[in-house]
Structure formats: structure tokens, C-alpha cells
């Protein structure tokens, strides 16, 4: 059964220079107990998507269009009070800056008890026991509960925040760059734990990241975002092994792979378009080594290429050739000149 179905969601920002179309009509589907990786570079609209989903947005942001169907209810139709009931009890978040996501003047225990008191009918003692259990689950000593956030290390804080996200046993957890600020060893441990917890507790997960290797470890499905749109989506191993969109091919090149130590890291030249008045046609065309005249004129739709794999690119023939070419440095360097 589908747990979360996002249809043509748009989140715009009103700015002094015009309307910034940060998220411009994205659709994806998340089955119960599945995990989806939402991948893209900084500024592509990943975090804005999350804020739109839980409807905690800055004052100048608005949702002009779209549907967020969660358990067959459109979250965009709910009022603030109804939405508050869903927040954290059903959908929780492990934020980008876990470091700063806890109130510095209260102990971690205090913040655990706060959410549980707000939402549950659990007694204080039961809440405390649950907090202790969760702390153990994420590999933290339960004594640490009584500490203040600033007394935690970065990794500890990240774990505490994950435990806090699990507090009310939600159906869906969204993690926004959950391990970006941590060193590689801690990153690996936390990802492993996150995967284990998800399977153990049967929780669905949306993982937002710019690091495609993180998704490879954790997710069933992948959606690749570029400039406010989803350009490719499908089962993780298919998207990673047989990318259909040139942007995905480029992304894969730009991350190191420990199994291929000699792999050259190739960056995608240029930068994403500004989203106040995005160019006509494909938004990736200017940076794409395979773009043709038509790419600059007509915007490609996200279409089904095979059973579960979607792509928003007109190049759907000779894909093997394109993939081979995309691994050459020259292919990408050519674009700038």
C-alpha cells in the first residue's frame, strides 16, 4: 500500500526579485516500509521539498499546487491543528543540522519528555523508559539522557536526534543530509544503524542527500532531483547501475568509489540555473554533454522508460554509449567551452 504519494508538488518562495520556483512539480510514491533516496546537489530543492511535506516553511514560502497524500489524506488540506497531530507522531524528521536542532537550554531528556507529553498518553515513567530504550537502540548510554546538547559530540548528537525521531514510533522518517557533517567512520556506523532500525521497526524512510553513495547503502528507491524537478527515478540498483539521465551519470562520476580506487572523479561543469526565471527547455541542457537543439526548446517530461524506471531526457537510445562517454573527463569539459 502506498504510504505517501506526492503529486505535482510545487513549493515557491516569494522574493524581492520574483518568485523562486524551488520545487516545481515533483511526484513520487513511497510504499509502506520502503525507503526512498532523494538525491541532488545543493539548491536543487531537496530540503524545500521536506519543508513542504511537513508544512513548516519560512514566511515567504507557499505551495501553489500539488497534493501530498499521506495515508489517503491530503496533508495540504489540513489545518494547523490537524497537521500538528500528524507531525512527529506519523512523520518525523532527522534534520540537516542535527547539531543545532536541540534546544540548548534544556536537557535531552527534557526534550524527549516534551514530545511524548505533547502527543502521547504515556505516563512520565513510561516515556522515560521509552527514551532509555531508544537511546540504547541508537548506541548511546542511557545516562547521557540527562545531559545538555552541548555536552554531546557531533556523532552522539546525531544519534540522539535519531532516537528522538523514533520517540513516537512514526510511520515515516525523513532524514535530511543525516550524516553530512560527520566523519566517514561515524557516517558508516550511523547509516548502518539507521538501516537496521528501519528494518526492525518497519518504518518508511525518505533520505535526502547529495551523496549518491549514501543512498546506495540505504535505499530501495532513488529519485534524482535537479533544479526543482525530478529528472530520474526508479529502483536504487537500477538507477545506480543503469542510469538513464545524463545528470545521474554525471553525479555518479563525481563521487569516489572504494571498490574502484583508480576511478577518476569527474565534476559536472557549470552550475544549476537560477529558479526565478528558469530557462526554457530542459533545465540541465546547458551543462549536459549530450544536449541537442531541441533540449533548449522543449521541456522533457518525466516518462516511464521501463517497468519501474522513469527519466526526463529525450536520449533514450544508445544509452550504453552515452554511459561510456560520460565516464570520460573530456566529455564533460567540452561543455564549458
Amino acid at each position, binding site marked *: 500500500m502506498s504510504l505517501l504519494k506526492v503529486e505535482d508538488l510545487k513549493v515557491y518562495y516569494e522574493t524581492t526579485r520574483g518568485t523562486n520556483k524551488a520545487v516545481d512539480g515533483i511526484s513520487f510514491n513511497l510504499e509502506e516500509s520502503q525507503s526512498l533516496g532523494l538525491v541532488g546537489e545543493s539548491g536543487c530543492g531537496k530540503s524545500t521539498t521536506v519543508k513542504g511535506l*511537513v508544512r*513548516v516553511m519560512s*514566511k515567504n514560502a507557499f505551495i501553489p499546487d500539488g497534493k501530498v497524500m499521506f495515508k489517503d489524506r491530503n496533508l495540504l488540506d489540513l489545518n*494547523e491543528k490537524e*497537521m*500538528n*497531530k*500528524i*507531525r*512527529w*507522531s506519523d512523520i*518525523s*524528521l532527522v*534534520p*540537516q*543540522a542535527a547539531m*543545532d*536542532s*536541540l*534546544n*540548548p*537550554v*534544556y*536537557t535531552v531528556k527534557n526534550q524527549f519528555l*516534551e*514530545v511524548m507529553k*505533547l*502527543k502521547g498518553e504515556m505516563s512520565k515513567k513510561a516515556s522515560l523508559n521509552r527514551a532509555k530504550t531508544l537511546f540504547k537502540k541508537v548506541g548511546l548510554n542511557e545516562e547521557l539522557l*540527562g*545531559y*545538555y546538547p*552541548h*555536552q554531546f559530540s557531533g556523532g552522539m548528537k546525531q544519534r540522539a536526534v535519531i532516537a528522538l525521531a523514533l520517540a513516537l514510533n512514526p510511520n515515516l522518517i525523513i532524514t535530511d543530509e543525516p550524516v553530512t557533517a560527520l566523519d566517514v567512520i561515524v557516517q558508516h556506523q550511523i547509516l548502518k544503524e539507521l538501516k537496521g532500525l528501519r528494518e526492525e521497526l518497519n518504518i518508511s524512510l525518505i533520505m535526502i542527500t547529495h551523496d549518491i553513495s549514501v543512498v546506495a547503502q540505504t535505499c530501495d528507491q532513488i529519485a534524482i532531483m535537479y533544479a526543482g524537478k525530478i529528472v530520474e527515478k526508479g529502483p536504487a540498483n537500477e538507477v545506480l547501475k543503469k542510469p538513464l539521465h545524463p545528470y545521474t551519470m554525471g553525479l555518479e562520476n563525481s563521487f569516489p568509489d572504494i571498490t574502484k580506487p583508480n576511478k577518476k572523479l569527474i565534476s559536472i561543469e557549470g552550475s544549476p540555473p537560477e529558479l526565478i526565471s528558469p530557462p526554457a527547455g530542459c533545465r540541465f541542457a546547458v551543462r549536459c554533454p549530450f544536449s541537442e537543439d531541441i533540449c533548449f526548446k522543449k521541456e522533457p517530461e518525466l516518462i516511464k522508460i521501463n517497468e519501474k524506471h522513469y527519466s526526463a531526457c529525450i536520449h533514450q537510445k544508445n544509452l550504453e554509449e552515452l554511459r561510456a562517454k560520460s565516464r570520460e573527463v573530456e566529455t564533460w569539459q567540452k561543455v564549458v567551452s
Partner: protein
Amino acid sequence: MNLRWKYLIKRTGQMLLTLWIIATILFFIFRLMPGNPLVAYIDPTFTEEQQEILMKQFGLDKSLWMQYIIYIKNLFQGELGQSFFFKDSVINVISKVLPNTIYLMLTALIIAYTAGIVGGIFLAWKRGEMIESVGIVFTLFTRAAPQFWVGMILLAIFSFQFDIFPSGGVSQAGTVYSSELDKLLSFQFYRHLFLPALTLSIYLLGLPLLLMRSNMLDVMDESYVEMAKIRGVSKIRVLVKYAARNAFLPVITAMAVGIGYAMGGNVVIETVFSWPGLGRLLVKAVSTSDYPLAQGAFILIAGVMVFMNFVADILYSLLDPRVNIDSKR
């Protein structure tokens, strides 16, 4: 010995050192001023011998260093000398007016900081709305308006026009309170306190209000505030427990330091309302060259300021766990 005690001892040492430096500076400032410090005391008709006897009485015949040592020694014993003008001990003179200043100051500070904190939260909450602009203009107006002017306006309205509040002093003409307690229990006293306290509150209001507002705006952008909203914490709770709780920390420091200023800085209001307080006493001491009294008053004000800074530090460490003086919880 635990860290907290170590900290307290260290901090007390620092305070004493600061006070000693202030006392020393005060001593030399008054001694190095041109003219004989006894000018105010000695009648020109005194004979040479009489003058010398007086000089001896006040210890002014001794060397400067000897005087300094005696001065510091007396200070440690709480002895501030004799007032030339009042012909009484400085301690007595000051302690007669000090309570009045404290009542005025505390009342005004409590009103101003309570209203300021609440007002600051309100304006931050109404960010970008019409009422915010009006509120800021109004606050800047209260901050910029001269105290004597506000005082006179209030007097004109409440005292002379409608005769609701008395125009000055601490008691009705001809009556005297038998004790401080009697004063504090008397309704008359509060009627006299009302206008000067209101004037001072209006003046003090701006700082906590604007400070609170700008801190609130900073804190409301913090990710823990956003996360609280995502956790479904209600709007009002986010505002109070997350935003305001963090934003008011610097306001506490401002308040503690403000007490120091308010101690000696009420000259204008005390004059407008004929309020017998420390500010007016200080003016009188300076204008009559009553240097033991001026010296004593200055030391007292400096002492309060230094002490309030210390209190601010302690309060801060109690309110913000990140500045805790212990390294552990």
C-alpha cells in the same frame, strides 16, 4: 573543593581587586584636585592655628601615602569618613537616602524589564506587520524623550491637572515616616513613588524591549526553533519555551548592569520629583565640595555596579547550561 567554589572565590577576588582600583583612583582624583580639600569646611575667618588643628583632625597633615593607607584601612572597616556639609558620618548620610533610591530603581526596573520582555516577544511575533512598525517608533520615542520632559508632562497631567498623584517628595508635607517599615507599609509612599517610577520605567523600557525583539528574531531563525515546529510543538510553546527562553539571556545581563547605572544615574528624575535619593545627594556633594561624601557615594555606586556584574554572571550560568561554571552538569 569543587569547581563552583573555586569559581566563586576567584570571582570574589576579582571583584575586590576592581573595587580597590576604583577606590584608589577616587582617592587620588580628589587629592590631586587643585585647592585645599577643606575649603568648603574652613571658614576664611579661622586663624592659622585653627586651620592647622582641623587639618590634623582630618589627617591632612600626613603625607599622601600615609593618608592613602589610612583611607584603605578605613574602607576595609566600612568607615567612609565625615561629611563636611552635613557634619555627620558619610555612612549615616548615605543610608538615609539610599533606600529611597533603591525603591525607585527596583520598581522602575521591574516594570520596565517585565514590559520590555513581553513587548519584545510581541513585536518579534508580529514581525512585518503594521503593529510592529508602530511599536518600534513608539519605543524609540520613549527612549529618546528626555527624562525631565517626560517627568514634567506626567506631573502636568497627573499632578497639576487632575491632582491624582503628589508632585514630589516621599511623604506629604509635614509628615515623617517613623521607620523604613512604616514607609513601606504606608499607602502615601506608593502614591509618591508612582510618578517618578513611571518616568524612570518609560526611560528604561526601550533597552530590554529592543534587545529582546532583536534576540527573538535571531533565535527564531535557529534550527531548534524550526525543529520544534516540525515536532508539532504548539506555536505559543515554541515562542515561549524555545524562542523567548533563549532570547532573554542577554537581557538578564543588561538588567543587572542597568541596576548599576540606575543607582547613580537618577539625578534628573530625583530632581524633577524632589525625590530624596542618592543621585541628588551626589550632586549636592559635588557642588559643595563635600569630597568625603562624594567619594563615599561613588564607591558605593561602583560597588553596586561591580557586584551586579557578578550577579549577572552567576545568573547567566544558572540560566544557560552552556555557560555553566562547572564543566559537568
